[in-house]
């Protein structure tokens, strides 16, 4: 039977194509995409883990460097997943190669999934690289591998979608660095990467609990170290809701052609 343009098979080829294109792109420029997180995180491990960390007492039974490893892995996953879709999608607008996709029968959902998976793959790959780098400085247990994998993928998906939405609205290159600099970086640094929220005063502990990045970092840390500040199931549910919400919103933008069609 000849497949119709709506068939699953054709959509699968289209998603594979987008994913292959994304992987080729970020591996071609590996010195800008895969190497910097390894170097930056090595510096974090040396400075915060070894030099400063050796002066800090244990947190929930772990040395400071062991405590910050999950947070730094998660931070790398999130920032790289975001950066991948934000820069890749914005470049397709900038070079007008987005028209190659718009003239094709690919639906908005297919385009969305293709870009999201590309960002997710880069995020998770960078996470693995940072994990391997961390093993050069300390040993790290993984208590719940499935939770670690699920949280890595969910966080990468959420941030890929965030990057995509940013790129849809972006009109200039500056616009894709605004959100990471002024929104994501503060939320990440205040998201329990370097400390436990139990160390905060009660008011700030409550405020922090609404930071989605903290929820992701906390769940991921639980998967690795089995220590947590928040309820894991509540955290995962919230991340799933965030994922569904962002997916729906990004789909709506693409479907309506906002930021990509005149």
């Amino acid at each position, binding site marked *: 039977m000849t497949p119709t*343009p709506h*068939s699953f098979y054709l959509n699968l080829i*289209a998603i594979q194509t987008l994913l292959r294109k994304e992987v080729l792109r970020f591996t071609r420029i590996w010195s800008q995409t895969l190497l910097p997180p390894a170097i930056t995180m090595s510096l974090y491990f040396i400075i915060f883990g070894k030099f400063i960390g050796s002066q800090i007492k244990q947190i929930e039974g772990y040395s400071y460097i062991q405590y910050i490893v999950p947070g730094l892995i998660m931070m790398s996953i999130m920032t790289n997943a975001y950066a991948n879709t934000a820069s890749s999608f914005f470049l397709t607008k900038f*070079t007008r190669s987005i028209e190659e*996709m718009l003239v094709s*029968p690919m639906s908005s959902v297919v385009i969305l999934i293709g870009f999201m998976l590309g960002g997710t793959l880069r995020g998770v790959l960078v996470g693995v690289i940072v994990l391997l780098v961390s093993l050069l400085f300390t040993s790290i247990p993984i208590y719940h591998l499935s939770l670690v994998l699920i949280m890595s993928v969910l966080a990468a998906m959420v941030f890929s979608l965030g990057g995509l939405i940013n790129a849809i609205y972006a009109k200039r290159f500056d616009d894709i660095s605004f959100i990471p600099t002024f929104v994501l970086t503060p939320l990440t640094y205040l998201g329990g990467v370097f400390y436990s929220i139990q160390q905060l005063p009660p008011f700030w502990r409550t405020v922090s609990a609404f930071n989605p990045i903290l929820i992701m970092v906390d769940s991921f840390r639980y998967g690795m170290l089995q220590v947590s500040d928040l309820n894991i199931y509540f955290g995962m549910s919230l991340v799933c809701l965030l994922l569904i919400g962002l997916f729906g919103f990004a789909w709506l933008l693409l479907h309506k*052609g906002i930021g990509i069609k005149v």
Partner: protein
Amino acid sequence: MNALSVKHLKKIYANGLVALKGIDLDVAEGDFFALLGQNGAGKSTTIGIICSLVTKTTGEISVFGHDMDKELALAKSLIGMVPQEINFSTFEKISHILINQAGYYGIPKKIAHERMEKYLSKMGLWEMRDQQAFRLSGGMKRRLMIARALMNEPKLLVLDEPTAGVDVELRHLLWRFLTELNQQGTTIILTTHYLEEAEQLCKNVAIIDHGEIIEKANMKALINRVNVQTLVLELERPLLHLPHIQNYAHRLVDETTLEVDIVTNQTINPLFEFLIQQNIGIRSMRNKTNRLEELFIHLISENKK
């Protein structure tokens, strides 16, 4: 069946500019159709809407009977587009650009590779397939966009100013290629500024001006509506006085250039007989302007009134 049917198509941009005022257009299957108009007349907007690059305000479009509001994917799978501006990532390899384009249409890799070889070879780019696209010259980039548009073997090929800025040799190569493609059954819609191009290639024509279709006709019938064409004769030796040529309006532009107006259905034999009698030698002869160009200018100026 119509390859393309456009009904009451209207486009108002966000800034309030009315680009299309509700146009109707039918292009028959197998046609080679020219959409002509001045800059800003609405050609590219029309093509942009047909190819899903521009959002319409109102109206209906169907491609080979498939309504673009109801069967968008199916309709789009039948269209190939060659845009006016370069719209591929110049950092990518030529082969990747084509294989990816095929992938967007759900074409399996094996078939995509066969088509890539076929169309890159036709466009004289096969040897360059592993190069990054920024290494190509302007003409090569345009050929690459044509090869890319053919990867889904479209039944309807839409070209927006495909020969703008390309050299004469390439222009003729593209004309031959497009003619061959049309003879094989592909319906072609072309916008162009070169009216000679439209006259040579196209069977039917529509002229758009200020967002309205002001003329739709068969190309030959339209050309025949030109009442007068002017022949420019370059003379062998200078003439001091204007010779009196009966039945033809004529004038001396300079001592060796004679212009003669020929009315529709008038033969030019008596003119040459007279010139031979008068021992006036002719070095060369040409049309003063392209006939379609004359008509185009006339229709546009009429519409302004």
